[in-house]
């Protein structure tokens, strides 16, 4: 998944409508301001070295996954699901719970 950029000029339509720009785009086509990396979900400006989502939106996605696990199966299936889908990260989380 590619990262997106956004216009941080609060007076610009692109900012108000949270219009995503491609990673290659450098300037806003509406107002000409420099574009910055933004969170794909909430349009918060991100530093250059971060992922697609801001920390809070990433946490939100994790919450959703965890809620799905809770509602779709018992403890054992949940563990299996976590390990398979999240690899090393999932294992780390599990050891914390124990």
């Amino acid at each position, binding site marked *: 998944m590619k990262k997106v950029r956004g216009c*941080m000029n*609060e007076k610009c339509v692109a900012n108000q409508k949270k219009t995503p720009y491609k990673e290659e785009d450098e300037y806003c086509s509406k107002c000409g301001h420099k574009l*910055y990396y*933004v*969170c794909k979900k*909430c*349009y*918060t*400006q*991100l*530093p250059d070295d*971060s992922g697609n989502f*801001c*920390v*809070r939106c990433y*946490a*939100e996605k*994790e*919450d959703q996954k*965890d*809620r799905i*696990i*809770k509602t779709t199966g018992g403890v054992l299936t949940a563990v299996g699901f976590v390990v398979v889908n999240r690899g090393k990260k999932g294992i780390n*989380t599990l050891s*914390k*719970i124990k």
Partner: protein
Amino acid sequence: MKRVMTVVSGTTSMKHELIVEPNGKKYRYKKVNAKENGNVSNIAKIKNSYMDLTSPITDEISTYNPAYPTVLLSNGLKTRLAESQIVAEKVYCALASEMPMLTQMQQSLKKGVKYVVDISESTSRAIEEGKIKLTTDKSGRMYAQIRDSNGQFGSQLPIIEESLAHLDPVQMANSLQIQALRGQLDVITGQINLIDQSVRAVLQGQQSDRIGLYHSGLSLYLESRVIVSNNLKSTITAQSLSALSESTFQLAAVMESDIEYLLNGEYKIAKGKNVELIDERMQKIYHSFAFIHQATMLRAGIYCNLGELSAMSTVLDEYSRFIDNTVVNNVDLLVQWDKTDSGSEEGVWKSRAKLKLEMSDLAKQLNDPDKTLFLGILKEDMK
């Protein structure tokens, strides 16, 4: 041709017309409204701002109003500025009477009634080419130096004590200082304003044990103001300042540990509740920050109203360092944890992070023992 004398101090210039009147006084100065000269402050006016050095001193507001500490500081600064303006004018008059060429000018104007100085072409050129530098040494003694055409300052001409006898040297030195820093004070108050705006919303209806010390500091200060005995007054003021400083310290520790919690991702332990926990911590961080800001404004305001400008600048400098350590270092993440911040330069956290530089600059200058005021005289044709 009319001439206007301009006292240039720091980055701002006060304009004065020198008016000579045969009323016993040698001369008086008429301040020229800065706005008429198109010299409007470049600090953007913010709605509902309590920190604005260009407006008149406001009436004291209720101590229950969350804006109280900021108004206290803002009014304190305005009082100091107004005082220093008067002193700077007195110094200017005293200086004018010391300088031979300016004296000449006065002589030729004895007969004049309410007109603006008319300087002979050669005198005016001499003044324009040089700049007059006023310096006070540590004991408050004042010297004037004229810069020659090579840009070198000539020997120090002591200003005769008599002409400044009615001025307290310490007050004079402080005044010169605050005049020279006027430009920076403008920048700082503009920045405090930005923070102030976002803080005040959080303050409404907040009560918790952690802010008990803040409230006790505030009420001790209010008590100190009505105490008549000087001894007791200063004891209670000192207690108030120490309660405020302690509350700042404790709240900063809480805020740092909340940031640490988020940095370490400790919220990840509670499955399905990550966002809830992030939001909870952010709310605590907002709360701590708001009261750190309040306690700082109050402490700075108290010092400013006591005329302790160096102590005031130290408080503001501490605040600046705290912002450096907690906000500036973590601003990229604070922005992401905060569901209300867009991460833009105008956003809550990035504007807080900006408080930094100018503040330490001010503290440095206030603590500098050499106080210098440049008096320049500009030729200007008035229509």
